[in-house]
């Protein structure tokens, strides 16, 4: 069912492009997230011309190889890809069926929030999760998690998978007449 839906949706190149755009947006955001103050400085600094700013933004994406373990990198890529696919399916549903897929949308949003909590460096302190826990004076809690926060990225992948399954089901079920 999921495969059939994916074939149906991605037959249209526009949905492929949308999935790629959103997957890239989440991928880039995940890598830039820990360096937002630096990106802010680069944007506001006249010392970098436009090309210099763009080049540096692209170079920082190389952090996927230098600043992430293979496991973390896999989680980031999987989460970004699944989120891109999810957005495409939700938009396809919105356009073709003209209804709002609430459950699937909430699932995807929850997954994204959870995923971004887990983004960071497991062995060197997670960014968002660490800061949030610290603001409650509970930064020590992170040590209780066996993967030190990456559990949230795994949860995100599970939620995104579920969301894709639900939306595929909704897209396919709209094609048959329910027995009253």
């Amino acid at each position: 069912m999921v495969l059939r839906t994916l074939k149906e949706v991605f037959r249209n190149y526009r949905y492929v492009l949308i999935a790629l755009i959103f997957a890239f947006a989440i991928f880039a955001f995940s890598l830039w997230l820990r360096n937002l103050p630096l990106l802010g400085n680069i944007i506001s600094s006249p010392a970098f011309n436009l090309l210099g700013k763009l080049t540096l933004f692209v170079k920082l994406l190389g952090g996927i190889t230098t600043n992430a373990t293979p496991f973390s990198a896999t989680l980031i890529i999987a989460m970004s890809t699944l989120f891109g696919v999810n957005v495409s399916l939700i938009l396809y549903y919105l356009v073709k069926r003209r209804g709002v897929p609430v459950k699937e949308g909430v699932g995807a949003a929850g997954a994204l929030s959870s995923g971004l909590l887990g983004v960071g460096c497991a062995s060197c302190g997670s960014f968002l999760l660490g800061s949030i826990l610290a603001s409650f004076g509970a930064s020590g809690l992170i040590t209780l998690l066996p993967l030190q926060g990456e559990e949230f990225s795994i949860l995100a992948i599970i939620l995104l998978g579920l969301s894709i399954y639900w939306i595929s089901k909704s897209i396919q079920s709209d094609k048959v007449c329910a027995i009253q």
Partner: protein
Amino acid sequence: MEQFQNFENESPQSQTQSRGKWLLPVSILVAGVMIAGAVVYSTGRNALQQETASSGKASAQRESAPPTFGSGSAENIKPITASDHILGNPEASVKVVEFADTECPFCKRFHLTMQQLIQEYGRNGQVAWVYRHFPLDQIHSKARKEAQATECANELGGNAKFWEYTDRLYEITPSNNNLDLSLLPQIAKEVGLDATKFQTCISGDDRGGKYADHIEEDYQDAVRSGGTGTPYSVVIAPNGQKFPITGAQPYSAVKQIIDTALTLK
């Protein structure tokens, strides 16, 4: 009537096509807004922190209030003094202050990046590397003891031995709190330090023994300067502008920041 029925039949399809036409540009826009929003939010927050830091009130707060993790700014970084561990020309135009934890695998990787940068820029005195401690006790309980060991190397052999010891420590440690602490005196011997004196120096509690205050001061400086994890580096340009870098970013990215910083006279 027939015309009306045709209109009814075609209308939803044309509406769908009309919506489909806007789908791609709107998606690009939304994705762009998502990223831009995050960056703009951060820029504003950072600018606000810089503004606050420049006021007298903030500098008074810096002395008294304990720093909150995740709320610091690079502008608050402690000035570089002769008591710092500096590799390269202390009068270099650009200084890279690195806050590191010897048990962090990414600090180990970034150590090599910094060595490469010093090879390139250190020889002509353009860039200096300043090393400060940022032991993340909650995940690396051995890091503070290792920081103490590097300070002992400094005490017994001066700045050169500090760097030699630190280089060797990063080479040997498997990271993630897996270094056998009994190797610390062995490293001291390897780099030519007096093993007995070194053993005496590293005795004491796990909070850093005789260097506990110094290590803690570096740690608090890292947090005040915006450090939320390791490695955390601040590139300081000749005009005082600061570029905070979180994580073991690629050599090419750090090099571009340094090249740009060198132009800021």
